[in-house]
């Protein structure tokens, strides 16, 4: 009796939470539809104003980021467009539309972008160009669970199909988990960023008086090395370093 009552209470809480989420989602959906309509009518800044709050509310979705990239590109803000396209890539790395638009945006970029990934990186972590980051994570977690479950079962009984399942899980684990960790490394420990301003001076220090070392332009991808309140230390290629104002940068 007590169990039945507890189950009923949990079900009620879940239903109420879902209803609340639905009620909360309505304005977000409305904003999105308004953004699409504004884009269709050529009001690109209005489209940005509709899409951006959704992203700022914490929604992370490849299609939403793609739309933001489109809106910014049409509005003539190349740096922001490339930034949002780049943010969409981990969500849909094989999306042809995204690749097409990003290539177009990259063709407008002024700076010659040095290569990011080495051949070794591309070979070892090839999953990131095929599967979404979330899918890679779930595959890593699933294979991890299967692997340890299999090992646990093998301590009790020695079954051939458990051995086969465990071997398969281990192979999948070894293939997928390094890519997941690599992506986490880039998002947490070694993030990258996009120059969102049309022209961004890179200085030797964290002030406007510091020597201007070089200038980067919209859309250029840089490595983030250190972040302070208003300035970020970036690396462009292997030999060019400097500080850039935070407002000129969009961290991926």
């Amino acid at each position: 009796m007590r169990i039945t009552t507890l189950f009923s209470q949990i079900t009620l809480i879940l239903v109420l939470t879902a209803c609340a989420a639905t009620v909360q989602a309505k304005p977000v959906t409305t904003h999105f539809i308004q953004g699409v309509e504004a884009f269709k009518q050529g009001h690109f800044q209005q489209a940005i104003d509709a899409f951006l709050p959704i992203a700022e509310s914490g929604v992370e979705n490849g299609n939403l980021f793609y739309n933001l990239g489109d809106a910014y590109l049409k509005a003539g803000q190349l740096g922001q467009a490339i930034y949002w396209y780049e943010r969409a890539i981990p969500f849909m790395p094989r999306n042809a539309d995204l690749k097409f638009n990003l290539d177009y945006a990259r063709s407008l970029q002024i700076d010659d972008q040095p290569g990011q990934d080495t051949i070794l990186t591309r070979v070892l972590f090839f999953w990131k160009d095929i599967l979404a980051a979330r899918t890679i994570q779930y595959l890593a977690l699933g294979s991890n669970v299967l692997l340890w479950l299999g090992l646990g079962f093998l301590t009790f009984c020695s079954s051939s199909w458990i051995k086969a399942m465990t071997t398969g899980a281990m192979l999948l684990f070894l293939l997928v988990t390094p890519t997941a960790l690599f992506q986490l490394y880039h998002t947490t420990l070694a993030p990258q960023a996009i120059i969102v301003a049309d022209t961004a001076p890179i200085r030797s220090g964290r002030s406007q008086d510091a020597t201007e070392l070089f200038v980067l332009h919209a859309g250029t991808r840089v490595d983030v090395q250190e972040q302070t309140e208003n300035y970020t230390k970036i690396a462009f290629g292997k030999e060019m370093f400097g500080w850039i104002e935070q407002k000129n940068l969009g961290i991926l």
Partner: protein
Amino acid sequence: MNKLFIVLICLLFPLQAWGETTVQATVDRTVISPDASLSLSVTVKDGSGEVDTSDIKDFDIVSQSSGSSISIINGSMTRTKEYTYTLVPRSKGTLAIPALPVDTGDGLLHTEPIRITVTQGQSSTADSGSASIFLKASISSKKAYIGQQIIYTASVYQSVNMADARLGEPEFTGFSVDKLDDQKSFDTVINGQSFRVTQIMYVLTPLQSGTQTIGPATLSCDLMRQDRRRSRLDSFFSNDPFFSSGRRVHKTFRSPSLTVDIRDLPDRAPTDQPFSGLIGTFSIASKLDKTSLKTGESATLTITISGTGNIADADRPVVTVPDDCKVYPDEPVTSSQTHSSGTTGQKNFAFALVPTKAGTLVLPPVTLNWFDPRTDSFATASTPSFTLTITQGTGQTASVRTHAKTSPATPPSPKNIKQDVTVLHRDILPVYEDVDAVNNRAPLAASSFLAAMCIPLLLCGCVPLIKKRLRRSGHPSRRYAHKAARLIAEARKSQGNEACTLCSRALIASVASRTHTLSESLTYDEMHELIVRTTGKNDLAEQARALMLTLDTARYGRSGIAPDQTKALIEQTSKIVRELCA
């Protein structure tokens, strides 16, 4: 030692050691024959300078070189820069080498003028070999039209060996020049003397009318002047200037100048045919790959112009077709070879014809009009006309590549004719409208992901504990049976009283596995009763009671127990335990 010191000082302070800059011009001889050359040396001492030789009008400069030297005499250092020119007279008589200006950087200095007498029969170097080498020049035609190719041939005749031979190309003013890569060599006999002849040819195309003069070609070389005393070894190497004894004598030979009368093309008779720009001997041919096709399909018309002359200059022939046929010309392909008779080859023009209307299509002849210098008149040739039968196609228009490269051997086939896709405009693809875009698809945060990855590992680490707990929380009969088995195993490793104690405990545990209640102190009768009650086996109960008695006797007796007896007791205990725990 003192000299070495001076040299070092001079090297350290070179400028302080030099004096005033002076220039001087000298020649190796002042009287020469018309076919001989002289050497002019301009020496700049204690300085550097550039010599301007543009004032030398009576001589051709066929070669020049320069060198510098530093000399130290009695501690005085002199730096000398010497320019050497090889001059060939342009005419006979008294010629002048004027005062040559030398720009030293600080100002202009001038050399002294030198007078040279050029007389027939005078040769400052009575070289026996000079008569054995001479240079001839010839031209294929002394009269030519503008655009008509003529061949200039420079022939070097030699009956003796020479070294470091260099042929100076004449000045072809008023011509475009195409030098033939391959040079001819053959042997000939003149007045009983054998000569080796080397011919270098140029294809000249006149660019302007009037009398054009082609300057002399020059040959500069080193000849070996034999010493009077010759060794036997010399005779062995007599044909090789490198090994033969004697000294080298530099000689320069010139060919005579030639004049060519260049004429404009005569006026053409009034005609509708455009002039192709070709001058020479030509012919025209045409080929159509098929004569019946459907609308929208394409046929290839190939027109080939071949002959000798300026074939590369042939303009694209005009192909006249009705309005209901589209013409797509390909890039022409030229294949030609230049040899002693001029340039010979062919030029192919391919046209893709795409009829748009069914019926009969007549391709009129294509006419070529060119100038033939052999007859001093314009000539005309035409291709035959073609008739195409056009049937109604499927309505699709053939796609045609307009800038395809075709070779004359493989005219464009309709199957290979494709259209290049060109980018007209550039734009991005539109936004996505699916509202699924507002659903959060964020990947896990690093902390969540790593925590989730660790959970199975922690669970796996708990497996032994779980296993132990499960064993502990299992059924009492199995638990006591396990305990009995474990005690038996320990008894096998022990000896004496300890083994008996373990066996006694194993026996009690096995009884407990039947009663599910462990009692560490059982009397013999209690044990008997429990075994009988739980198993119904009186024999087994008797054996267990007897064994328990024996074990207690062995445990508490003073005499101890032998190893063999211990082993037997363990086996007996094990047997009873197995039966009780079964």
